[in-house]
């Protein structure tokens, strides 16, 4: 039977504040276990939380960028549950008066744009990390109390691909705001997915499962794809879906039951009495709004319009703020009104080089002006495409300007037709058989002859002109 997939995502995001949400401990990743702790984040008796206002500013920034309504009056609540990674045995979170509600995020899908609703963005604190050994379990509290944002989407996604798009766009936006590393491997971005199937045309949602333990966007997509198959097969067999939490096993590539939810767990939320509720002034919201840069969606539209890029190219270029800014610098430095050339180079050789080095294009150490200088040689047909790539590689390693490298390597192309005539004649003389074939109508042979001539010129001949010269000499001879 055909089913419609319904997906909602819950994203947890570490805010990149220097100190934790409610104490002065550092948030630096990767330090010795339990080296960044104090009585407050360890939940020692008598200690009290004090809210980090930078975390609030960051949270408001994210909420606004996701088109949420920031609430003027908000408070923290306690979410009560026992677990060894939670030293107070309650988490400071937000329940009925979250920081913000009712936002959206636009994604591109086949057939155009689609708007995914955002139910709420709220603030909370992270728990510690459990490390299980054979005999014991250890707790590292370094992460305990780090400021987290929970971003809850509406169940608006209809395929694993849409979920993937949502996450990619979300990460891109957060990256533009500079408030989180969004690194799933380091745990600074975590994503749980709720998924259910329903018969096409049915209004009510089906029974959902919650998927956890995905450590990349790809894993989220894979887990959802698996779950679509599993639930679909079960429904086809007339089996009921059990509401449960399932863990993604990235080795076996399947989801497995973690715990079955018998109703929902009672967290006994109540207002956190140690932190008075607070008012967020409209002026503050306006002030933060001003610090939000042009976001990827707007930038995408502008790149297409201002620089005549294809949507495909523009989308790649705007995915990070640093990359987009670098691209824009290149476009501005590039004198030609048609920006196809710099776009191709940014997306092609530069991006693959950056990916190899695990860097952003902007971090390769090449100036926009140096790149456009190099592209100028290409435009003037003074060097070959192949040579340009050699020059770029040299520029990246030696940081020398393009002109110097071209001179050193003697890469300027020969466009002088007198010199090329001689080469063409030599090639015609040396390849009698191929010339014969060409004359009998096998025009494909021409490229072989051009190749031979290129070899003779040691790659320095301008291939276009060379081709014309060859054609002309073949006709003459």
């Amino acid at each position, binding site marked *: 039977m055909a089913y419609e997939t319904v997906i909602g995502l819950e994203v947890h995001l570490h805010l990149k504040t220097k100190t934790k949400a409610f104490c002065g401990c550092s948030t630096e990743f990767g330090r010795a276990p339990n080296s960044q702790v104090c009585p407050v984040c360890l939940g020692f008796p*008598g200690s*009290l939380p004090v809210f980090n206002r930078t975390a609030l500013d960051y949270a408001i920034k994210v909420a606004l960028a996701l088109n949420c309504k920031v609430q003027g009056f908000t408070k923290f609540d306690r979410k009560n549950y026992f677990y060894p990674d939670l*030293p*107070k045995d309650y988490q400071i979170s937000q329940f009925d008066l979250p920081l913000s509600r009712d936002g959206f995020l636009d994604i591109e899908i086949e057939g155009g744009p689609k708007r995914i609703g955002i139910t709420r963005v709220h603030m909370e604190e992270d728990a510690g990390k459990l490390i299980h050994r054979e005999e014991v379990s250890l707790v590292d509290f370094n992460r305990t109390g780090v400021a987290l944002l929970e971003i809850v989407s509406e169940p608006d996604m209809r395929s694993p691909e849409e979920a993937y798009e949502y996450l990619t766009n979300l990460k891109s936006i957060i990256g533009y705001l500079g408030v989180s590393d969004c690194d799933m491997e380091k745990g600074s971005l975590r994503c749980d997915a709720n998924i259910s199937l329903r018969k096409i045309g049915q209004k009510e949602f089906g029974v959902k499962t919650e998927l956890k333990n995905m450590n990349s966007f790809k894993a989220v997509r894979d887990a959802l794809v698996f779950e679509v198959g599993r639930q679909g097969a079960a429904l086809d067999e007339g089996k009921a879906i059990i509401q449960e939490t399932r863990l993604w096993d990235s080795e076996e590539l399947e989801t497995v039951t973690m715990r079955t939810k018998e109703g929902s767990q009672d967290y*006994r939320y109540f207002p956190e*009495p*140690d932190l*008075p509720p607070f008012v967020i002034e409209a002026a503050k919201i306006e002030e933060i709004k001003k610090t939000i840069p042009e976001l990827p969606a707007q930038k995408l539209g502008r790149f297409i319009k201002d620089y005549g890029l294809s949507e495909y190219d523009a989308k790649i270029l705007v995915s990070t703020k640093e990359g987009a800014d670098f691209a824009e610098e290149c476009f501005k430095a590039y004198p030609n009104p048609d920006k196809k050339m710099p776009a191709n180079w940014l997306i092609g050789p530069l991006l693959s080089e950056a990916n190899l080095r695990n860097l952003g294009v902007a971090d390769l150490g090449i100036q926009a002006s140096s790149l456009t200088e190099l592209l100028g040689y290409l435009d003037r047909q003074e060097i070959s495409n192949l040579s340009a790539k050699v020059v770029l590689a040299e520029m990246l390693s030696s940081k020398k300007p393009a002109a110097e490298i071209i001179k050193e390597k003697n890469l300027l192309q020969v466009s002088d037709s007198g010199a090329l005539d001689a080469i063409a004649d030599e090639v015609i003389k040396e390849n009698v058989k191929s010339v014969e074939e060409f004359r009998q109508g096998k025009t494909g042979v021409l490229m072989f002859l051009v190749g031979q001539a290129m070899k003779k010129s040691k790659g320095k001949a301008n291939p276009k002109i060379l081709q014309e010269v060859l054609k002309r000499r073949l006709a003459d001879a």
Partner: protein
Amino acid sequence: MELNFLTAHELIEKLDKKEISSSDILNSLYKRINETDAKVRAYVRTPDTKHLTPSTKLPPISIKDNICTEGLNTECCSKILEGFKPPYDATVIKKLKEAGAAILPLKTNMDEFAFGSSTENSFFGVTSNPWNLECVPGGSSGGSAAAVASDEAVWALGSDTGGSIRQPAAFCGVVGLKPTYGRVSRYGLIAFASSLDQIGPITKDVTDAALLMNIIAGYDPYDATSADIAKPDYTRALENNIKGIKIGIPKEYFVQGLDSEVGKIIEEAITKLKSLGAVCKEVTLPHTEYAVPVYYIIATAEASSNLARFDGVQYGYRTPNSKLPTQNLIEMYKKTRGEGFGEEAKRRIILGTFALSHGYYDAYYLRALKVRTLIKKDFDDAFKELDCILTPTAPTPAFKIKEKVDDPLKMYLSDIYTISANLAGVPAVSIPCGFTKNNLPVGLQIIAKPFNEEALFKVSYAYEQNTPWHEMKPKI
């Protein structure tokens, strides 16, 4: 006279004149503790003298077992905090040390986690009332009050969530003040009910209470609920003049349940204040009757969450009767908490957990919060025309040990006159105002509007200067 019998301000005078040193006071206190504490049992544990600072500007102070003192056992008189030595000082302890006071290295007894009105719910056993060793000292700060009353302490700190400073002060015939919520930092006070708890002084007279408040009050950036308001010099309110001061007597406090002897003594105190020039009139606090139920919902709800952290994972007691937590975590939690908490603690955790449970939250917790607002409004309205409100501190004098221990509801009613001040967040003091025929002290409670502790000091000082009660000493 032995130094331990003097008030803090008398001792400070002698210290300033270099007539005595702080170690003289300590020796005198230790001598007294050795002589009488076997009977009173105001302190838990024996002194750990290596923590003593040799010479200080101020007399040493006795601290309730729920206020964190760095490196010194702080166990809330509970088995579950067995051996807990905090790695830090509470803000009030820091302030005391900075002001030049030594912290007596043994803590005062209390009801476990401040759950009680008689100090009978202590893991370390009951404290006796110095005026009658068969009676309770009140609670939960019974140890601090009994120590001050028996001259085993110069002055002391207690904590007050529903009357835990004022009621034992009344039972023991000493001064006990609960500051405005937010006036004194709670950082380092092991929480019972975060929205109600305040630390405050228990002293031999009103002057000592003002001196102690001068040290401990004030904004603390480590407590988000502390008020960022300038702190006055409270000793300036100690003037023997209350002419024209307007005092309200709430009719709801003089009803059935008030011991007739206590009622009479309070009447006499009112007469005395009138003779000193106070203008007294009857007022109404219409929601008074709801204070006890509202309190027992809010306080237990917060406590159920505050006490969750005592789970055997990081500190304190962990059951030896369970498999490794890795193998059975839930069993470790259950046994640790089952074995570590006393009866009353368990009762309150269960009550609070219930009040916050899904499906009951609106009917209990949320409703209680709404009524709390009404109770606060009662006080706001009353204080529009008043400087102070005057009531008995407790409905009865000290009762016998074990008399109410099996009847929690009866026990809860011991706090019927003190609870409203915590719910409303207003400051209140209990001062001695007479004795019953059986020679048990009676306390007079004075309540003022938020951040007007000066009014409390003004009225209580004038009353004290014109009555002999604070000079009475029990024979132990």
